[in-house]
Structures are given as C-alpha cells and as structure tokens.
C-alpha cells in the first residue's frame, strides 16, 4: 500500500522537473536580428520592426548598463566563454562602454567604417566620432549628443526679478541670493552619479586625460579646486543639494506643480525626460540658456552626460542587417511631438529636424534650441573616455560624504586617489597624481 501511494508523487515530481526545464525563453538563434536596448530606445526598435515586417527581430530590453553597472561586461564575458549568444546590436547608456568593448579581452565591437558608408558617418560631429574611436578604429556611433547647458525656469526668474547668469561666478552669487530671498529653491543639484561631468568637466578639471595607456588624474588642479570652492557655499545653504534628480525624494521636494527648480545645469536630454517625465513640472516654465563660462576664460567649455552609443557585434550573423538597423535608429527615426527622441541627435540632419520640433514644443517657456545648438560643439575635449566607469567612484567617494555634510573641497583628494586606484586596477598607468 505504501508503494501504491508513492507513484503519484513520483509522477508529479517528474512532470514538474520537465516543465521547469523546457520552455525557457530567448530563442535568439531563430531571429534574424537580435537587439539589446534600454527602455528609452524601445520605441526605436519597435518602429524598425513595424517598418520591416520581413525581418524577424528579437528585441531585448535591459538596464542599459547605466550608472557604471557591470551588466554588459558580465554578459559579454559569458557569451565569449560559451562561444555563442551575442546580440547583433547593443545600445548602451554608458558612453565609455565601447572603449572596453573594442579591446581585448572582450573584443566585441565590429568596425563601423566597414559597415556604414562614409557619406553617412561624416555627418557626425568630429568630437562624437572621436569618442567612438578606439586604437584608431571606430567601434560605435553615438545616438545623441549630451552637451551640458544651463536649464532655466524663465517664469520664476522673471517673477523674482533675476537675470539669467552667463558666468559660473554670477550663477553662484545668484545662488547665495536665492538662499536668503527664496529659501527652498535650488539652482542645480550635485548628487547624481554623473554630477562631476556637469561641474568639473565643464571647468576643464583634469580627471580623465588619456594618452595611450596612461591616464592623467589631478584632482587638486586649480580648475578643480576653484569649482569646488565656488559650489561649497551653495551645497551648504541648500541651493545645490547633494541629491539625484531621479530619486523620489527629489521629485517630492522640488518637483510637481509647485516646483522649486530655479536653474539647473544639465545635459540636453533633460529637456523632456527630467523636467516633464520625472519632475512633472508645468509647461511654460523651463527653457535652456547657453552653458556657463568661468569668468576670465576666453572660451566656453562645457561637460557631457552620456551620448549613448550603438555598438554592432563582431559576431553578428548578418552584419548588413545590423548596420541597417543602426542606420535607421540614428538617421531615419525622428518623430516629432510627444514621441520625439529624448536626446539631441548626433547625426546632424536629424538634429536639425529635432531642433525644429523642440522649438515648436509648447512645454518650454521659450525656444531652447539656440542654447542647445550653441553648446553642441563646446564639450571640452580634454576629458577622455576610459575602460573603467568613474560614476560609481564619484557616488561612493564624494556624494555619500556630501550627504553627510562634508565639503567638496575636502573630498577632491580622496576622489583623485579613488580614481587612480580604479585606473590602476583597470590596467592604466596613472600620471599627475
């Protein structure tokens, strides 16, 4: 009798085991084209599938490898070890991903110049192409340029009777004024994982100067210390909080209908993605002003936050189809209105169309496009992309301590040391420290 009762249990166990093993998703070997995109690039992939119904696509959304994550490195390692499984096209939110993808041991990226004609590639700005060039070969094309401009709440500025600053010093002075006259309002934020790209990169602070296999990191250079001295009082008086724009705390405290954002230095893609989608600010308030200049400097330089690259796999079954998709995504896909691309297209003709759409968008208080166009070629070229991500170093070494009340000036040296450690661990020689 005990044996009779055992058989049903065994049968159920076997069935459960078999059903758990079979039917795992991802039959990518059956698809003609496998693309990995983040959430913001999903509309592009879907649009391509719709326009090319004969191409069987496998669209995979992932975290975009943003904020210095290791997602793509682990995945490519595993695919390399297994010898199969690579997607044909990857979009990454980390601008420095192509740098390690184009080198050993990952060796993932295909040479773009073999797959896309020069007539198309020449329409990217030289700085953008330079960021995609590793050891003399171009391994990616950037989807958008992410130049930093000064976003201004025109409505509130007019209401309070302030003029839009053109220099960092004027901006800081205004911050001091705002702290006493309109407490609660902010002139920027410094708690994002990429805030050093907005404030330090813009002022030519030498934290990432690559020359061959050597990287120059000098966090106590004058360009860095003078910016730190400028922003420390603002962090202290609350007009430059060490919070990130994408945290729920930030949206609650500074966003919404009664928003407290007076000014915010930020990249071009903040336009709708941050002020509308994340902070839900009312229309008719925000516009863009040219990037701030350090008083006394002859030229204006600004920073960069992203500019996501498209990378085609070396192991793609059909490189032509992959190249066709990337060409479509960067040059053709350019809807207007609510479905517009979130970033300033790197492909110049697409940029013109996009700018026209932005100029007509009623969300902005005034036309933001002149400022965006002006800043497009002002990104400081002395900050190179490296194989290691510097965002986590900034977050861990600086932001966590800013939250605890330390000043940025006191954290520059630890930042330099931590960056040097990360560089050495990644195999670079470090100079200038």
């Amino acid at each position: 009798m005990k044996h009779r009762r055992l058989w049903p249990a065994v049968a159920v166990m076997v069935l459960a085991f078999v059903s758990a093993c079979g039917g795992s998703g991802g039959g990518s070997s059956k698809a003609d084209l496998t693309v990995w995109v983040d959430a913001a690039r999903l509309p592009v992939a879907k649009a391509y599938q719709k326009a090319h119904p004969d191409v069987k696509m496998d669209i995979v959304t992932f975290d975009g490898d943003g904020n210095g994550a290791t997602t793509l490195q682990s995945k490519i390692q595993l695919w390399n070890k297994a010898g199969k499984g690579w997607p044909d096209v990857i979009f990454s939110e980390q601008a420095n991903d192509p740098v390690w993808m184009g080198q050993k041991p990952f060796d993932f990226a295909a040479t773009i110049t073999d797959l896309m004609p020069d007539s198309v590639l020449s329409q990217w700005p030289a700085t953008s192409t330079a960021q995609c060039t590793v050891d003399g070969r171009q391994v990616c094309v950037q989807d958008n340029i992410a130049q930093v401009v000064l976003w201004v709440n025109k409505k509130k500025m007019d209401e309070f009777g302030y003029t839009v600053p053109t220099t960092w010093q004027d901006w800081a002075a205004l911050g001091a004024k705002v702290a006493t006259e309109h407490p609660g309002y902010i002139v920027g934020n410094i708690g994002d994982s990429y805030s050093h790209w907005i404030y330090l990169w813009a002022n030519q602070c030498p934290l990432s100067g690559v020359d061959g296999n050597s990287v120059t990191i000098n966090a106590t250079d004058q360009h860095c210390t003078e910016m730190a001295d400028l922003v420390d009082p603002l962090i202290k008086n609350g007009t430059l909080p060490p919070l990130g724009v994408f945290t729920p705390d930030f949206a609650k405290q500074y966003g919404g209908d009664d928003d407290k954002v007076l000014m915010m230095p930020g990249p071009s893609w903040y336009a709708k993605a941050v002020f509308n989608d994340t902070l839900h600010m009312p229309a008719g308030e925000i516009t863009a002003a040219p990037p701030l200049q350090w008083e006394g400097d002859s030229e204006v330089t600004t920073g960069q936050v992203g500019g996501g690259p498209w990378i085609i796999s070396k192991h793609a079954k059909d490189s032509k189809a992959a190249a066709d998709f990337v060409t479509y995504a960067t040059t053709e896909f350019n809807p207007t209105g609510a479905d517009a691309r979130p970033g300033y297209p790197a492909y110049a003709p697409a940029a013109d169309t996009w700018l026209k759409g932005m100029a007509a968008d009623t969300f902005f208080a005034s036309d933001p496009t002149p400022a965006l166009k002006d800043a497009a070629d002002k990104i400081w070229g002395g900050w190179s992309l490296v194989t290691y991500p510097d965002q986590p170093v900034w977050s861990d070494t600086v932001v966590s301590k800013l939250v605890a009340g330390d000043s940025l000036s006191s954290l520059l040296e630890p930042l330099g040391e931590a960056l040097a450690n990360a560089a050495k661990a990644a195999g670079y020689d470090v100079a200038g420290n």
Partner: protein
Amino acid sequence: MTSPATEHRSTSATEDQGGAAALSSSSVQVARSRGLHGWRAFSFVVPYLLFLVLFGILPMLYALKLAFTKASGGFAGFRNFTDTAKDYRFVPAMEHVLVYTTVWLSLLMVFVVLLALLLHGRASRASSMFRFMYYFPGALAGAASVLVWLFMLDPSVSPGSFFVHHVLGAHHFVESIAPGKLPFIFAMIAFWTGAGGWVVVLYGALNTIPTELEDAARIDGAGPLTLALRLKLPLIRKWIAYMVILSFATGTQLFVEPQLVNQASLGMVPDTWSSNQLGYQLAFRYADFNAAAAIAVDLLVVGLLAAFVIISRTGLFKAAD
C-alpha cells in the same frame, strides 16, 4: 530520541542554502551508523547529494584549480592570493564582512534562542500560529525581501517613515544607506528573512527534550527562567552550534543585499562592498577568473576554520551528551 532530530536536520539542510559539506556528511554518517534499514532515508538524501556534487563539490574543486593556476593554465603558486590581497578593495571588503557577520551572528544567537524559548514556553495553539508567522518572511527569496526593505528604508515612501526619521536619523534614502549604517541594515534585512526559519528549527530541537525532565525540574522548584537557562539551553547547544556554522558561512558570503542596494542607490554603495562582490567583479569586469577563485577559496577556508572551531568546542559530532 535522536531520530526525529536527525531527520529534521537533514530536511532543513536541504532548505538552507548555506550548504556546508560537513553537514550532509554528518547526516550520511548517522544514517550509516543506524544501519541500512533506511533505504527510504537514502532516497531522500541521494537527490540532494547529486545536486551537492554537481553544484557544490565540483565547482569548489574547479575553483581550487583556478585559484592555483594562471590564466594561461600554468601553475601560479600563491600568486593569485597575494595579488588579490594587495587589491585596494580587498581589506575594506573583509572589514565590512567582518562587522556584518559579527552583528548578524550576535542578533541571531540572542534573538532566535530567545524567541524559540518563548515560543516553547507558551500554550501550543497560539505557538503554532506564531511559528507560521516567524517562518513566513523566510519564504520570500532573498532578493525579494531586499526589495521590500529598499522601500521600507526610503523615507519618502516607507510606511515606517517615523522610525526611519527618528531611529535611523534619515530624511532621504541616501542617508538611510550611509556607509556606517550599512552593516546594521544588511544584518537587519538578513535577520528578517533568516531568523524565522531558525526559530522553527530550534523550536523543534526544544521539543526533543523529554517532558519528564521538565516536570522533574519544576518539581525541584525551577522557575521559567531557570528552566530556560539551566535545562533547555544546554540541551539544545548542538543545534545552536549548527545554526552558527551555517549562518557564519552565509554571512561571510554576503552578496545579494549589497548588490541590490548598489543598484538601487545608483552606485553610491560600491559594487565591491563585500568580498563575494569583489570576486564577482574580478571575474566579470576584469575577466580575471583566477583571482576571483582565490577570493572564493579565501572565504571557503574562513568558513571551514570557523566550522572546525565550533565543532570541536561544542562536540557537535559526539554521539551522546
């Protein structure tokens, strides 16, 4: 008298993911010493043995091989170990794990034993409901419980924001996860998921104490406190030792909690906070599987040493009391 306890031990060994090799060998040892009239016992143990070999022993041997070889395959001596020890993240990670494990084990030993004794001292109907409630958080997979805690720790969305403000002193999420607070936060998360299961195990252990002993002690004039401390506690010390061994192993191998908090905080908590995370980064960011294996062997040695010390001190494998 020992049979329900040992069968209890082998089924709970399949539940916990600590998976110390010492444990299954102990259950097999006992089965053998009682003779083979338990083919049924074997049929329970053999599937687990299969998975233990495939996913525990073989990877461990592979890691041992990797730790002593170079990437090209040649013998590397102890070079991987010295190189990883010199990594700038190695010592901080070990420090973090040490503080975390100390806090976690202290919490566990004190509160789990306390709760189990309280549960055992109460009436049985109420205690079965409590046993379910204690066990329930442990049914959540580790990653899911961390996600729940991420919401609990964020003052702007937490239902317990009063406590977050006043006990943790945090007005923003980034303050909740300040570096100094992290070992305690991770210990809290791990306790919430892990303690319940152990309370149930220790309750089962307490049930093996014959009621005649308790009655005799009561007749001799022992109050509930004396009963708990002088009678019950010494009799379950082997189960407490077992709990400490497994929890030490899972504690030193902490990975899920700091990894998820790293992603949720967008990098503010470093992705090499714990030693296991450092091993993961070495393998997948730097493609240095040999160094990662060296860290894994470090953790294995630490766990085995602790197990050895605890076993010899408490006489865990000695047959009778």
